[in-house]
Protein backbone atom coordinates (compact mmCIF):
# COMPACT_ATOMS: atom_id res chain seq x y z
CA UNK A 1 0.00 0.00 0.00
CA UNK A 2 2.80 2.38 0.88
CA UNK A 3 4.40 1.60 -2.46
CA UNK A 4 1.11 2.25 -4.24
CA UNK A 5 0.79 5.68 -2.64
CA UNK A 6 4.40 6.46 -3.43
CA UNK A 7 3.86 5.66 -7.11
CA UNK A 8 0.58 7.54 -7.12
CA UNK A 9 2.06 10.69 -5.61
CA UNK A 10 5.06 10.50 -7.93
CA UNK A 11 2.68 10.24 -10.88
CA UNK A 12 0.54 13.13 -9.65
CA UNK A 13 3.60 15.33 -9.37
CA UNK A 14 4.76 14.39 -12.86
CA UNK A 15 1.23 15.18 -13.96
CA UNK A 16 1.62 18.70 -12.61
CA UNK A 17 4.44 19.22 -15.07
CA UNK A 18 2.21 18.12 -17.95
CA UNK A 19 -0.47 20.49 -16.69
CA UNK A 20 2.02 23.32 -16.77
CA UNK A 21 2.66 22.83 -20.48
CA UNK A 22 -1.03 22.20 -21.21
CA UNK A 23 -1.83 25.46 -19.40
CA UNK A 24 0.11 27.44 -21.99
CA UNK A 25 -1.85 25.72 -24.79
CA UNK A 26 -5.19 26.48 -23.13
CA UNK A 27 -4.43 30.18 -22.61
CA UNK A 28 -3.62 30.69 -26.28
CA UNK A 29 -6.45 28.52 -27.56
CA UNK A 30 -9.00 30.40 -25.48
CA UNK A 31 -7.90 33.83 -26.58
CA UNK A 32 -7.12 33.26 -30.23
CA UNK A 33 -8.47 29.87 -31.25
CA UNK A 34 -4.96 28.88 -32.33
CA UNK A 35 -3.90 25.39 -31.42
CA UNK A 36 -0.35 26.24 -30.42
CA UNK A 37 1.87 23.28 -31.05
CA UNK A 38 4.93 25.45 -30.36
CA UNK A 39 4.26 25.65 -26.61
CA UNK A 40 6.75 22.88 -25.87
CA UNK A 41 9.35 24.58 -28.05
CA UNK A 42 8.76 27.76 -26.02
CA UNK A 43 9.45 25.75 -22.86
CA UNK A 44 12.70 24.46 -24.37
CA UNK A 45 13.61 27.91 -25.66
CA UNK A 46 13.15 29.51 -22.23
CA UNK A 47 15.00 26.72 -20.41
CA UNK A 48 17.93 26.81 -22.87
CA UNK A 49 18.29 30.56 -22.54
CA UNK A 50 18.22 30.49 -18.74
CA UNK A 51 20.61 27.55 -18.51
CA UNK A 52 22.83 28.94 -21.26
CA UNK A 53 23.08 32.43 -19.81
CA UNK A 54 23.86 31.00 -16.40
CA UNK A 55 26.24 28.29 -17.54
CA UNK A 56 28.09 29.93 -20.44
CA UNK A 57 27.99 33.61 -19.60
CA UNK A 58 27.91 33.34 -15.81
CA UNK A 59 24.81 35.52 -15.50
CA UNK A 60 23.19 34.99 -12.08
CA UNK A 61 19.66 33.61 -12.03
CA UNK A 62 18.03 36.74 -10.67
CA UNK A 63 19.09 38.48 -13.90
CA UNK A 64 18.81 35.52 -16.28
CA UNK A 65 15.20 34.69 -15.43
CA UNK A 66 13.77 38.22 -15.84
CA UNK A 67 15.86 38.61 -18.99
CA UNK A 68 14.34 35.43 -20.39
CA UNK A 69 10.86 36.64 -19.52
CA UNK A 70 11.56 39.85 -21.45
CA UNK A 71 12.87 37.71 -24.30
CA UNK A 72 9.70 35.60 -24.31
CA UNK A 73 7.62 38.79 -24.54
CA UNK A 74 9.76 39.75 -27.51
CA UNK A 75 9.17 36.34 -29.05
CA UNK A 76 5.42 36.74 -28.51
CA UNK A 77 5.50 40.13 -30.19
CA UNK A 78 7.53 38.73 -33.08
CA UNK A 79 5.17 35.80 -33.57
CA UNK A 80 2.16 38.10 -33.61
CA UNK A 81 3.81 40.43 -36.15
CA UNK A 82 5.41 37.88 -38.44
CA UNK A 83 3.10 34.87 -38.28
CA UNK A 84 -0.34 35.56 -36.83
CA UNK A 85 -1.11 38.91 -38.42
CA UNK A 86 -0.62 37.83 -42.05
CA UNK A 87 -2.50 34.60 -41.41
CA UNK A 88 -5.51 36.07 -39.65
CA UNK A 89 -8.82 34.53 -40.77
CA UNK A 90 -7.14 31.50 -42.31
CA UNK A 91 -8.49 28.06 -41.59
CA UNK A 92 -7.53 26.56 -38.21
CA UNK A 93 -5.46 23.81 -39.85
CA UNK A 94 -3.29 26.45 -41.53
CA UNK A 95 -2.75 28.22 -38.21
CA UNK A 96 -1.90 24.88 -36.63
CA UNK A 97 0.68 24.17 -39.33
CA UNK A 98 2.19 27.61 -38.87
CA UNK A 99 2.71 26.88 -35.17
CA UNK A 100 4.55 23.70 -36.19
CA UNK A 101 6.72 26.03 -38.26
CA UNK A 102 7.26 28.18 -35.15
CA UNK A 103 8.08 25.00 -33.25
CA UNK A 104 11.01 24.21 -35.55
CA UNK A 105 12.13 27.84 -35.85
CA UNK A 106 12.31 28.30 -32.05
CA UNK A 107 14.22 25.05 -31.55
CA UNK A 108 16.58 26.13 -34.33
CA UNK A 109 17.24 29.53 -32.75
CA UNK A 110 17.81 28.04 -29.31
CA UNK A 111 20.30 25.54 -30.74
CA UNK A 112 22.11 28.14 -32.84
CA UNK A 113 22.74 30.09 -29.64
CA UNK A 114 23.42 27.30 -27.18
CA UNK A 115 24.14 24.08 -29.10
CA UNK A 116 22.41 20.84 -28.33
CA UNK A 117 24.39 19.51 -25.40
CA UNK A 118 22.64 18.73 -22.16
CA UNK A 119 22.91 21.25 -19.32
CA UNK A 120 21.86 21.21 -15.73
CA UNK A 121 19.61 23.91 -14.39
CA UNK A 122 19.69 24.22 -10.64
CA UNK A 123 18.00 27.35 -9.39
CA UNK A 124 18.30 26.26 -5.79
CA UNK A 125 15.09 24.34 -5.26
CA UNK A 126 16.03 21.85 -2.52
CA UNK A 127 15.80 18.24 -3.60
CA UNK A 128 16.11 16.31 -0.36
CA UNK A 129 14.06 13.18 0.07
CA UNK A 130 11.52 13.34 2.89
CA UNK A 131 9.82 10.46 4.64
CA UNK A 132 6.19 10.33 5.68
CA UNK A 133 5.83 7.14 7.67
CA UNK A 134 7.77 4.73 5.51
CA UNK A 135 6.91 6.45 2.23
CA UNK A 136 9.55 8.36 0.30
CA UNK A 137 8.77 11.69 -1.37
CA UNK A 138 10.96 14.22 -3.15
CA UNK A 139 11.09 17.70 -1.65
CA UNK A 140 11.64 19.03 -5.19
CA UNK A 141 8.33 17.67 -6.42
CA UNK A 142 6.39 19.12 -3.50
CA UNK A 143 7.91 22.57 -3.97
CA UNK A 144 7.15 22.33 -7.69
CA UNK A 145 3.54 21.59 -6.88
CA UNK A 146 3.53 24.67 -4.66
CA UNK A 147 4.98 26.82 -7.46
CA UNK A 148 2.34 25.62 -9.89
CA UNK A 149 -0.43 26.30 -7.38
CA UNK A 150 0.86 29.86 -6.92
CA UNK A 151 1.05 30.32 -10.69
CA UNK A 152 -2.52 29.16 -11.17
CA UNK A 153 -3.78 31.44 -8.39
CA UNK A 154 -1.94 34.37 -9.97
CA UNK A 155 -3.47 33.57 -13.37
CA UNK A 156 -6.94 33.38 -11.85
CA UNK A 157 -6.48 36.70 -10.05
CA UNK A 158 -5.16 38.22 -13.26
CA UNK A 159 -8.09 37.05 -15.32
CA UNK A 160 -10.76 37.90 -12.72
CA UNK A 161 -9.54 41.14 -11.19
CA UNK A 162 -7.55 43.10 -13.72
CA UNK A 163 -8.73 45.09 -16.67
CA UNK A 164 -6.55 43.11 -19.06
CA UNK A 165 -7.91 39.88 -17.64
CA UNK A 166 -11.45 40.99 -18.39
CA UNK A 167 -10.41 41.89 -21.91
CA UNK A 168 -8.94 38.43 -22.38
CA UNK A 169 -12.10 36.78 -21.14
CA UNK A 170 -14.19 38.94 -23.44
CA UNK A 171 -12.10 37.92 -26.42
CA UNK A 172 -12.25 34.28 -25.42
CA UNK A 173 -16.02 34.53 -25.21
CA UNK A 174 -16.69 36.16 -28.56
CA UNK A 175 -14.08 37.63 -30.89
CA UNK A 176 -16.42 39.80 -32.88
CA UNK A 177 -18.33 41.19 -29.93
CA UNK A 178 -15.05 42.01 -28.22
CA UNK A 179 -13.78 43.77 -31.31
CA UNK A 180 -16.97 45.76 -31.68
CA UNK A 181 -16.64 47.25 -28.18
CA UNK A 182 -13.18 48.49 -29.05
CA UNK A 183 -10.81 45.76 -27.94
CA UNK A 184 -7.71 45.49 -30.10
CA UNK A 185 -7.24 41.84 -30.96
CA UNK A 186 -3.60 42.30 -31.94
CA UNK A 187 -2.69 43.60 -28.51
CA UNK A 188 -4.62 40.82 -26.86
CA UNK A 189 -2.72 38.23 -28.86
CA UNK A 190 0.66 39.69 -27.89
CA UNK A 191 -0.42 39.72 -24.23
CA UNK A 192 -1.73 36.18 -24.26
CA UNK A 193 1.32 34.78 -26.07
CA UNK A 194 3.50 36.64 -23.56
CA UNK A 195 1.62 35.06 -20.66
CA UNK A 196 2.09 31.67 -22.27
CA UNK A 197 5.75 32.60 -22.61
CA UNK A 198 5.96 33.30 -18.88
CA UNK A 199 4.22 30.00 -18.14
CA UNK A 200 6.79 28.40 -20.44
CA UNK A 201 9.61 30.01 -18.42
CA UNK A 202 8.21 28.50 -15.22
CA UNK A 203 7.70 25.14 -16.91
CA UNK A 204 11.22 25.31 -18.33
CA UNK A 205 12.77 25.98 -14.92
CA UNK A 206 10.79 23.19 -13.28
CA UNK A 207 11.33 20.59 -16.03
CA UNK A 208 14.92 21.60 -16.61
CA UNK A 209 15.64 21.36 -12.91
CA UNK A 210 14.19 17.87 -12.75
CA UNK A 211 15.50 16.33 -15.97
CA UNK A 212 18.23 18.64 -17.29
CA UNK A 213 17.93 21.00 -20.24
CA UNK A 214 18.32 19.35 -23.62
CA UNK A 215 16.49 19.38 -26.96
CA UNK A 216 14.57 16.16 -26.26
CA UNK A 217 12.62 18.21 -23.70
CA UNK A 218 10.23 19.16 -26.51
CA UNK A 219 8.86 15.64 -26.42
CA UNK A 220 6.86 16.77 -23.42
CA UNK A 221 4.58 18.34 -26.03
CA UNK A 222 3.38 14.90 -26.93
CA UNK A 223 2.51 14.26 -23.30
CA UNK A 224 0.70 17.54 -22.89
CA UNK A 225 -1.62 17.00 -25.87
CA UNK A 226 -3.71 14.18 -24.36
CA UNK A 227 -3.85 16.17 -21.11
CA UNK A 228 -5.28 19.01 -23.11
CA UNK A 229 -7.94 16.85 -24.71
CA UNK A 230 -8.93 15.14 -21.52
CA UNK A 231 -9.33 18.46 -19.75
CA UNK A 232 -11.10 20.17 -22.60
CA UNK A 233 -9.31 22.67 -24.82
CA UNK A 234 -10.70 25.75 -23.11
CA UNK A 235 -10.56 24.97 -19.42
CA UNK A 236 -7.70 25.95 -17.08
CA UNK A 237 -8.93 23.78 -14.17
CA UNK A 238 -9.47 21.04 -16.77
CA UNK A 239 -5.80 21.20 -17.78
CA UNK A 240 -4.66 20.88 -14.16
CA UNK A 241 -7.01 18.03 -13.23
CA UNK A 242 -6.41 16.13 -16.45
CA UNK A 243 -2.66 16.50 -15.92
CA UNK A 244 -3.04 14.91 -12.50
CA UNK A 245 -5.21 12.07 -13.84
CA UNK A 246 -2.86 11.31 -16.69
CA UNK A 247 0.28 11.60 -14.58
CA UNK A 248 -1.12 9.23 -11.98
CA UNK A 249 -2.60 6.84 -14.54
CA UNK A 250 0.65 6.70 -16.46
CA UNK A 251 2.77 6.01 -13.40
CA UNK A 252 0.44 3.29 -12.13
CA UNK A 253 0.19 1.71 -15.56
CA UNK A 254 3.95 1.66 -16.00
CA UNK A 255 4.43 -0.03 -12.63
CA UNK A 256 1.52 -2.46 -12.59
CA UNK A 257 0.67 -3.01 -16.27
CA UNK A 258 4.13 -2.54 -17.76
CA UNK A 259 5.64 -5.84 -16.62
CA UNK A 260 2.69 -7.75 -18.10
CA UNK A 261 2.59 -6.31 -21.61
CA UNK A 262 6.12 -4.98 -21.98
CA UNK A 263 7.79 -1.74 -20.91
CA UNK A 264 7.72 1.72 -22.41
CA UNK A 265 3.96 2.02 -22.39
CA UNK A 266 4.07 5.54 -20.97
CA UNK A 267 4.51 6.84 -24.53
CA UNK A 268 0.98 6.03 -25.53
CA UNK A 269 -0.95 5.23 -22.36
CA UNK A 270 -2.03 8.84 -21.88
CA UNK A 271 -3.39 8.90 -25.42
CA UNK A 272 -5.42 5.78 -24.87
CA UNK A 273 -6.95 7.26 -21.69
CA UNK A 274 -7.80 10.47 -23.56
CA UNK A 275 -9.13 8.62 -26.59
CA UNK A 276 -11.33 6.29 -24.58
CA UNK A 277 -12.67 9.22 -22.61
CA UNK A 278 -13.42 11.25 -25.72
CA UNK A 279 -15.49 8.57 -27.34
CA UNK A 280 -17.72 8.87 -24.29
CA UNK A 281 -17.53 12.65 -23.85
CA UNK A 282 -16.05 14.42 -26.87
CA UNK A 283 -15.61 17.84 -25.25
CA UNK A 284 -13.35 16.58 -22.46
CA UNK A 285 -13.82 16.95 -18.72
CA UNK A 286 -14.59 20.66 -18.52
CA UNK A 287 -14.49 21.82 -22.10
CA UNK A 288 -17.25 23.89 -23.58
CA UNK A 289 -19.26 22.09 -26.20
CA UNK A 290 -17.73 24.14 -28.96
CA UNK A 291 -17.00 21.26 -31.26
CA UNK A 292 -19.85 20.39 -33.52
CA UNK A 293 -21.29 17.02 -32.73
CA UNK A 294 -21.64 14.71 -35.65
Amino acid sequence: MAFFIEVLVGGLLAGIMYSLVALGFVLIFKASGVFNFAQAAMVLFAAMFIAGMYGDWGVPFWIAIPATIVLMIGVAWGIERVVLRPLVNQEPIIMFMSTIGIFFALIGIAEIFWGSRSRTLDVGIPSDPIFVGDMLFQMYDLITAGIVAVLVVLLVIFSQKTRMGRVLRAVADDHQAAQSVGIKLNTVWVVVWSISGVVAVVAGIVWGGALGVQPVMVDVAFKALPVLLLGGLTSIPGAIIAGLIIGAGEALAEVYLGPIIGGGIDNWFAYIIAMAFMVWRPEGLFGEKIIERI
Partner: protein
Amino acid sequence: MIYRESGQFKKTYHADQAILPLRQDQIFVLGAILFAFLVVPFVASNYAMNSLLLPFLIYSLAAIGLNLLVGYCGQISLGTGGFMAVGAFAAWNLALRTELPMPVIFILAGLITAGTGVLFGLPALRIKGFYLAVTTLAAQFFLIWLLQRPWFNNYSPTGVISAPSINMFGWQVDSVTDRYYLALIILVIMALLAKNIVRSSTGRKWMAIRDMDVAAEIIGIRPMATKLKAFAVSSFFIGIAGILWAFLYLGQLEAEAFNIYTSFDVLFMIIIGGLGSILGCFLGAAFVVLVPIFLNVVPSWLGLPLGTAMISYIEIFIFGSLIIFFLIVEPHGMARLWSIIKQKLRLWPFPY
Protein backbone atom coordinates in the same frame (compact mmCIF):
# COMPACT_ATOMS: atom_id res chain seq x y z
CA MET B 1 -1.29 31.58 -76.22
CA ILE B 2 0.02 28.05 -76.12
CA TYR B 3 -2.16 26.91 -73.28
CA ARG B 4 -5.63 27.38 -74.70
CA GLU B 5 -8.59 25.08 -75.03
CA SER B 6 -10.19 26.76 -78.03
CA GLY B 7 -10.80 24.37 -80.92
CA GLN B 8 -10.88 21.27 -78.72
CA PHE B 9 -14.45 20.09 -79.02
CA LYS B 10 -15.86 17.25 -76.96
CA LYS B 11 -18.01 15.09 -79.23
CA THR B 12 -18.78 12.26 -76.81
CA TYR B 13 -19.62 12.05 -73.13
CA HIS B 14 -16.60 9.82 -72.82
CA ALA B 15 -14.30 12.57 -74.06
CA ASP B 16 -15.96 15.06 -71.75
CA GLN B 17 -15.30 12.92 -68.71
CA ALA B 18 -11.64 12.21 -69.40
CA ILE B 19 -9.22 12.62 -66.50
CA LEU B 20 -7.40 15.35 -68.37
CA PRO B 21 -9.87 17.04 -70.72
CA LEU B 22 -7.30 19.42 -72.23
CA ARG B 23 -4.84 18.19 -74.84
CA GLN B 24 -2.03 20.34 -73.37
CA ASP B 25 -2.50 18.66 -69.99
CA GLN B 26 -2.51 15.21 -71.58
CA ILE B 27 0.73 15.95 -73.39
CA PHE B 28 2.31 17.38 -70.25
CA VAL B 29 1.40 14.42 -68.01
CA LEU B 30 2.29 11.78 -70.61
CA GLY B 31 5.55 13.60 -71.27
CA ALA B 32 6.37 13.68 -67.55
CA ILE B 33 5.69 9.94 -67.18
CA LEU B 34 7.72 9.07 -70.28
CA PHE B 35 10.53 11.31 -69.08
CA ALA B 36 10.53 9.55 -65.70
CA PHE B 37 10.59 6.12 -67.35
CA LEU B 38 12.91 6.63 -70.32
CA VAL B 39 15.23 9.52 -69.56
CA VAL B 40 15.75 9.83 -65.80
CA PRO B 41 17.30 6.39 -65.14
CA PHE B 42 19.93 7.01 -67.81
CA VAL B 43 20.97 10.49 -66.81
CA ALA B 44 20.62 10.39 -63.00
CA SER B 45 23.57 9.22 -60.95
CA ASN B 46 23.17 6.41 -58.45
CA TYR B 47 23.41 8.91 -55.62
CA ALA B 48 20.61 11.03 -57.05
CA MET B 49 18.39 8.01 -57.61
CA ASN B 50 18.94 6.61 -54.17
CA SER B 51 18.78 9.70 -52.02
CA LEU B 52 16.61 12.06 -54.08
CA LEU B 53 14.33 10.24 -56.48
CA LEU B 54 13.40 7.21 -54.38
CA PRO B 55 12.38 9.24 -51.32
CA PHE B 56 10.57 11.66 -53.60
CA LEU B 57 8.54 8.89 -55.27
CA ILE B 58 7.71 7.15 -52.00
CA TYR B 59 6.88 10.35 -50.15
CA SER B 60 4.62 11.33 -53.05
CA LEU B 61 2.71 8.10 -52.61
CA ALA B 62 2.35 8.64 -48.86
CA ALA B 63 1.27 12.22 -49.48
CA ILE B 64 -1.39 11.08 -51.95
CA GLY B 65 -2.69 8.68 -49.31
CA LEU B 66 -2.83 11.34 -46.63
CA ASN B 67 -4.31 13.88 -49.02
CA LEU B 68 -7.23 11.55 -49.75
CA LEU B 69 -8.02 11.65 -46.04
CA VAL B 70 -7.16 15.24 -45.11
CA GLY B 71 -7.62 17.14 -48.34
CA TYR B 72 -10.63 15.30 -49.73
CA CYS B 73 -12.46 13.98 -46.68
CA GLY B 74 -11.43 16.69 -44.20
CA GLN B 75 -10.30 14.34 -41.42
CA ILE B 76 -6.95 15.38 -39.96
CA SER B 77 -4.48 12.63 -39.23
CA LEU B 78 -1.09 12.78 -37.52
CA GLY B 79 -0.65 9.01 -37.54
CA THR B 80 0.90 8.62 -40.99
CA GLY B 81 4.23 7.35 -39.67
CA GLY B 82 2.50 4.69 -37.61
CA PHE B 83 0.48 3.45 -40.58
CA MET B 84 3.57 3.36 -42.79
CA ALA B 85 5.24 1.22 -40.14
CA VAL B 86 2.24 -1.12 -40.06
CA GLY B 87 2.46 -1.61 -43.81
CA ALA B 88 6.19 -2.28 -43.71
CA PHE B 89 6.05 -4.70 -40.80
CA ALA B 90 2.99 -6.50 -42.14
CA ALA B 91 4.77 -7.08 -45.45
CA TRP B 92 7.95 -8.23 -43.71
CA ASN B 93 6.12 -10.68 -41.48
CA LEU B 94 4.05 -12.02 -44.37
CA ALA B 95 7.23 -12.56 -46.38
CA LEU B 96 8.84 -14.29 -43.42
CA ARG B 97 5.98 -16.51 -42.35
CA THR B 98 4.24 -17.34 -45.62
CA GLU B 99 5.24 -18.44 -49.09
CA LEU B 100 3.01 -15.96 -50.88
CA PRO B 101 4.32 -14.17 -53.98
CA MET B 102 5.50 -10.59 -53.45
CA PRO B 103 2.65 -8.74 -55.25
CA VAL B 104 0.11 -10.58 -53.08
CA ILE B 105 2.11 -9.70 -49.97
CA PHE B 106 2.10 -6.02 -50.96
CA ILE B 107 -1.67 -6.02 -51.37
CA LEU B 108 -2.32 -8.01 -48.19
CA ALA B 109 -0.05 -5.69 -46.19
CA GLY B 110 -1.91 -2.72 -47.66
CA LEU B 111 -5.21 -4.29 -46.59
CA ILE B 112 -3.89 -4.91 -43.07
CA THR B 113 -2.92 -1.24 -42.88
CA ALA B 114 -6.36 -0.30 -44.16
CA GLY B 115 -7.94 -2.34 -41.35
CA THR B 116 -5.72 -0.62 -38.79
CA GLY B 117 -6.69 2.73 -40.26
CA VAL B 118 -10.38 1.94 -39.90
CA LEU B 119 -9.82 0.94 -36.28
CA PHE B 120 -8.11 4.23 -35.43
CA GLY B 121 -10.59 6.13 -37.59
CA LEU B 122 -13.46 5.12 -35.32
CA PRO B 123 -13.11 8.20 -33.06
CA ALA B 124 -13.75 10.30 -36.18
CA LEU B 125 -17.37 9.30 -35.89
CA ARG B 126 -17.63 11.31 -32.69
CA ILE B 127 -15.07 14.06 -32.96
CA LYS B 128 -13.29 16.17 -35.52
CA GLY B 129 -10.71 18.89 -36.00
CA PHE B 130 -7.91 19.13 -33.46
CA TYR B 131 -9.47 16.53 -31.23
CA LEU B 132 -9.20 14.05 -34.05
CA ALA B 133 -5.64 15.16 -34.82
CA VAL B 134 -4.59 14.33 -31.30
CA THR B 135 -6.40 11.01 -31.17
CA THR B 136 -4.60 9.96 -34.35
CA LEU B 137 -1.38 10.70 -32.46
CA ALA B 138 -2.51 7.84 -30.25
CA ALA B 139 -2.28 5.62 -33.32
CA GLN B 140 1.21 6.92 -34.02
CA PHE B 141 2.61 6.21 -30.56
CA PHE B 142 0.70 3.01 -29.91
CA LEU B 143 1.53 1.39 -33.25
CA ILE B 144 5.24 2.19 -33.03
CA TRP B 145 5.31 0.76 -29.53
CA LEU B 146 3.40 -2.33 -30.63
CA LEU B 147 5.72 -2.97 -33.57
CA GLN B 148 8.73 -2.86 -31.27
CA ARG B 149 7.45 -5.97 -29.48
CA PRO B 150 9.81 -8.87 -30.19
CA TRP B 151 7.31 -11.00 -32.14
CA PHE B 152 7.08 -8.43 -34.92
CA ASN B 153 10.80 -8.42 -35.64
CA ASN B 154 11.12 -12.17 -35.11
CA TYR B 155 13.09 -11.79 -31.85
CA SER B 156 15.95 -9.97 -33.52
CA PRO B 157 18.36 -8.91 -30.76
CA THR B 158 18.94 -5.38 -32.13
CA GLY B 159 15.38 -4.70 -33.24
CA VAL B 160 16.70 -3.77 -36.70
CA ILE B 161 15.95 -6.29 -39.43
CA SER B 162 16.91 -6.29 -43.07
CA ALA B 163 14.30 -6.24 -45.80
CA PRO B 164 13.75 -9.37 -47.90
CA SER B 165 14.66 -9.39 -51.57
CA ILE B 166 11.76 -8.52 -53.84
CA ASN B 167 10.70 -10.69 -56.73
CA MET B 168 7.88 -9.24 -58.80
CA PHE B 169 6.49 -11.65 -61.42
CA GLY B 170 9.95 -13.11 -61.95
CA TRP B 171 11.64 -9.71 -61.97
CA GLN B 172 14.35 -9.63 -59.31
CA VAL B 173 14.50 -6.09 -57.90
CA ASP B 174 18.11 -5.52 -56.86
CA SER B 175 19.95 -2.58 -58.38
CA VAL B 176 19.04 0.99 -57.65
CA THR B 177 17.58 1.35 -61.17
CA ASP B 178 15.30 -1.64 -60.55
CA ARG B 179 14.14 -0.16 -57.27
CA TYR B 180 13.50 3.17 -58.95
CA TYR B 181 11.41 1.49 -61.63
CA LEU B 182 9.38 -0.52 -59.12
CA ALA B 183 8.61 2.58 -57.03
CA LEU B 184 7.75 4.54 -60.16
CA ILE B 185 5.43 1.86 -61.56
CA ILE B 186 3.57 1.51 -58.27
CA LEU B 187 3.36 5.29 -57.88
CA VAL B 188 1.96 5.82 -61.39
CA ILE B 189 -0.66 3.10 -60.96
CA MET B 190 -1.73 4.31 -57.55
CA ALA B 191 -1.74 7.99 -58.51
CA LEU B 192 -4.08 7.16 -61.40
CA LEU B 193 -6.20 5.15 -59.00
CA ALA B 194 -6.35 8.05 -56.57
CA LYS B 195 -7.19 10.52 -59.32
CA ASN B 196 -10.06 8.27 -60.36
CA ILE B 197 -11.30 7.63 -56.83
CA VAL B 198 -11.70 11.33 -56.17
CA ARG B 199 -13.70 11.70 -59.38
CA SER B 200 -15.98 8.82 -58.50
CA SER B 201 -19.04 8.87 -56.29
CA THR B 202 -16.83 7.90 -53.34
CA GLY B 203 -14.64 10.94 -53.84
CA ARG B 204 -17.62 13.22 -54.23
CA LYS B 205 -19.08 11.89 -51.00
CA TRP B 206 -15.79 12.58 -49.25
CA MET B 207 -15.79 16.16 -50.48
CA ALA B 208 -19.41 16.60 -49.39
CA ILE B 209 -18.47 15.39 -45.90
CA ARG B 210 -15.46 17.69 -45.88
CA ASP B 211 -17.41 20.76 -46.92
CA MET B 212 -20.32 20.30 -44.55
CA ASP B 213 -21.03 17.02 -42.89
CA VAL B 214 -24.53 17.87 -41.69
CA ALA B 215 -25.65 18.85 -45.17
CA ALA B 216 -24.01 15.74 -46.61
CA GLU B 217 -25.92 13.56 -44.17
CA ILE B 218 -29.18 15.23 -45.11
CA ILE B 219 -28.75 14.53 -48.81
CA GLY B 220 -28.34 10.87 -47.98
CA ILE B 221 -24.60 10.27 -47.54
CA ARG B 222 -23.87 7.99 -44.62
CA PRO B 223 -21.12 9.77 -42.65
CA MET B 224 -19.90 6.64 -40.89
CA ALA B 225 -19.39 4.51 -43.97
CA THR B 226 -17.91 7.40 -45.93
CA LYS B 227 -15.41 8.45 -43.29
CA LEU B 228 -14.30 4.91 -42.56
CA LYS B 229 -13.86 4.30 -46.28
CA ALA B 230 -11.63 7.38 -46.44
CA PHE B 231 -9.55 6.05 -43.54
CA ALA B 232 -9.31 2.63 -45.19
CA VAL B 233 -8.30 3.86 -48.65
CA SER B 234 -5.90 6.44 -47.27
CA SER B 235 -4.27 3.87 -44.98
CA PHE B 236 -3.94 1.42 -47.87
CA PHE B 237 -1.94 3.99 -49.85
CA ILE B 238 0.14 4.93 -46.83
CA GLY B 239 0.77 1.27 -46.01
CA ILE B 240 2.12 0.62 -49.52
CA ALA B 241 4.30 3.72 -49.18
CA GLY B 242 5.59 2.30 -45.90
CA ILE B 243 6.53 -0.99 -47.55
CA LEU B 244 8.40 0.82 -50.31
CA TRP B 245 10.13 3.08 -47.79
CA ALA B 246 11.43 0.13 -45.79
CA PHE B 247 12.09 -2.36 -48.61
CA LEU B 248 13.35 -0.11 -51.38
CA TYR B 249 14.77 3.00 -49.72
CA LEU B 250 16.07 2.00 -46.28
CA GLY B 251 16.65 -1.68 -47.03
CA GLN B 252 15.93 -2.43 -43.39
CA LEU B 253 13.08 -2.22 -40.94
CA GLU B 254 13.03 -0.37 -37.69
CA ALA B 255 9.89 0.95 -36.05
CA GLU B 256 11.70 4.10 -34.93
CA ALA B 257 12.31 5.07 -38.57
CA PHE B 258 8.61 5.90 -38.77
CA ASN B 259 8.44 8.28 -35.84
CA ILE B 260 6.20 11.28 -35.31
CA TYR B 261 8.40 13.51 -37.47
CA THR B 262 7.65 11.30 -40.49
CA SER B 263 3.99 12.07 -39.91
CA PHE B 264 4.74 15.77 -39.73
CA ASP B 265 6.82 15.62 -42.92
CA VAL B 266 3.98 14.04 -44.87
CA LEU B 267 1.52 16.55 -43.44
CA PHE B 268 3.82 19.40 -44.52
CA MET B 269 3.92 17.98 -48.01
CA ILE B 270 0.19 18.10 -48.47
CA ILE B 271 -0.16 21.51 -46.82
CA ILE B 272 2.68 23.06 -48.81
CA GLY B 273 1.69 21.19 -51.97
CA GLY B 274 -2.00 21.89 -51.65
CA LEU B 275 -4.87 20.21 -49.84
CA GLY B 276 -7.25 18.40 -52.14
CA SER B 277 -4.90 18.18 -55.11
CA ILE B 278 -3.07 15.13 -56.44
CA LEU B 279 -0.56 17.32 -58.27
CA GLY B 280 0.11 19.13 -55.01
CA CYS B 281 1.31 15.89 -53.42
CA PHE B 282 4.16 15.67 -55.93
CA LEU B 283 5.09 19.34 -55.53
CA GLY B 284 5.01 19.08 -51.74
CA ALA B 285 7.06 15.90 -51.69
CA ALA B 286 9.66 17.48 -53.96
CA PHE B 287 9.82 20.48 -51.65
CA VAL B 288 10.29 18.50 -48.45
CA VAL B 289 12.91 16.20 -50.03
CA LEU B 290 14.87 19.01 -51.65
CA VAL B 291 14.95 21.63 -48.90
CA PRO B 292 17.22 19.75 -46.45
CA ILE B 293 19.61 18.83 -49.25
CA PHE B 294 19.59 22.40 -50.51
CA LEU B 295 20.24 23.74 -47.01
CA ASN B 296 23.09 21.30 -46.65
CA VAL B 297 24.77 22.33 -49.86
CA VAL B 298 24.36 26.11 -49.81
CA PRO B 299 26.76 26.96 -46.93
CA SER B 300 29.58 25.07 -48.64
CA TRP B 301 28.88 26.87 -51.93
CA LEU B 302 29.06 30.19 -50.17
CA GLY B 303 32.20 29.02 -48.39
CA LEU B 304 30.82 29.74 -44.93
CA PRO B 305 33.03 28.21 -42.26
CA LEU B 306 30.29 26.43 -40.31
CA GLY B 307 30.56 23.24 -38.33
CA THR B 308 28.22 20.37 -39.19
CA ALA B 309 26.38 20.83 -35.89
CA MET B 310 25.78 24.50 -36.62
CA ILE B 311 24.54 23.66 -40.12
CA SER B 312 22.00 21.23 -38.71
CA TYR B 313 20.73 23.86 -36.24
CA ILE B 314 20.40 26.43 -38.99
CA GLU B 315 18.65 23.82 -41.10
CA ILE B 316 15.99 23.30 -38.43
CA PHE B 317 15.50 27.04 -38.12
CA ILE B 318 15.24 27.64 -41.87
CA PHE B 319 12.92 24.66 -42.33
CA GLY B 320 10.52 26.11 -39.76
CA SER B 321 10.77 29.58 -41.25
CA LEU B 322 10.15 28.29 -44.76
CA ILE B 323 6.97 26.55 -43.63
CA ILE B 324 5.71 29.80 -42.13
CA PHE B 325 6.80 31.73 -45.22
CA PHE B 326 4.98 29.38 -47.59
CA LEU B 327 1.84 29.41 -45.51
CA ILE B 328 1.81 33.21 -45.52
CA VAL B 329 2.53 33.54 -49.23
CA GLU B 330 0.06 30.91 -50.40
CA PRO B 331 -2.00 29.14 -47.72
CA HIS B 332 -3.58 26.95 -50.39
CA GLY B 333 -0.30 25.48 -51.45
CA MET B 334 1.76 25.23 -54.57
CA ALA B 335 -1.06 23.56 -56.48
CA ARG B 336 -2.93 26.86 -56.23
CA LEU B 337 0.10 28.72 -57.58
CA TRP B 338 0.16 26.27 -60.49
CA SER B 339 -3.50 26.88 -61.31
CA ILE B 340 -2.91 30.64 -61.15
CA ILE B 341 -0.07 30.21 -63.63
CA LYS B 342 -2.33 28.15 -65.91
CA GLN B 343 -5.00 30.83 -65.75
CA LYS B 344 -2.45 33.47 -66.72
CA LEU B 345 -1.13 31.30 -69.55
CA ARG B 346 -4.59 30.99 -71.06
CA LEU B 347 -4.87 34.75 -71.42
CA TRP B 348 -1.28 35.58 -72.26
CA PRO B 349 -0.27 37.92 -73.88
CA PHE B 350 -3.44 39.83 -73.00
CA PRO B 351 -3.92 41.04 -69.42
CA TYR B 352 -7.58 39.85 -69.33
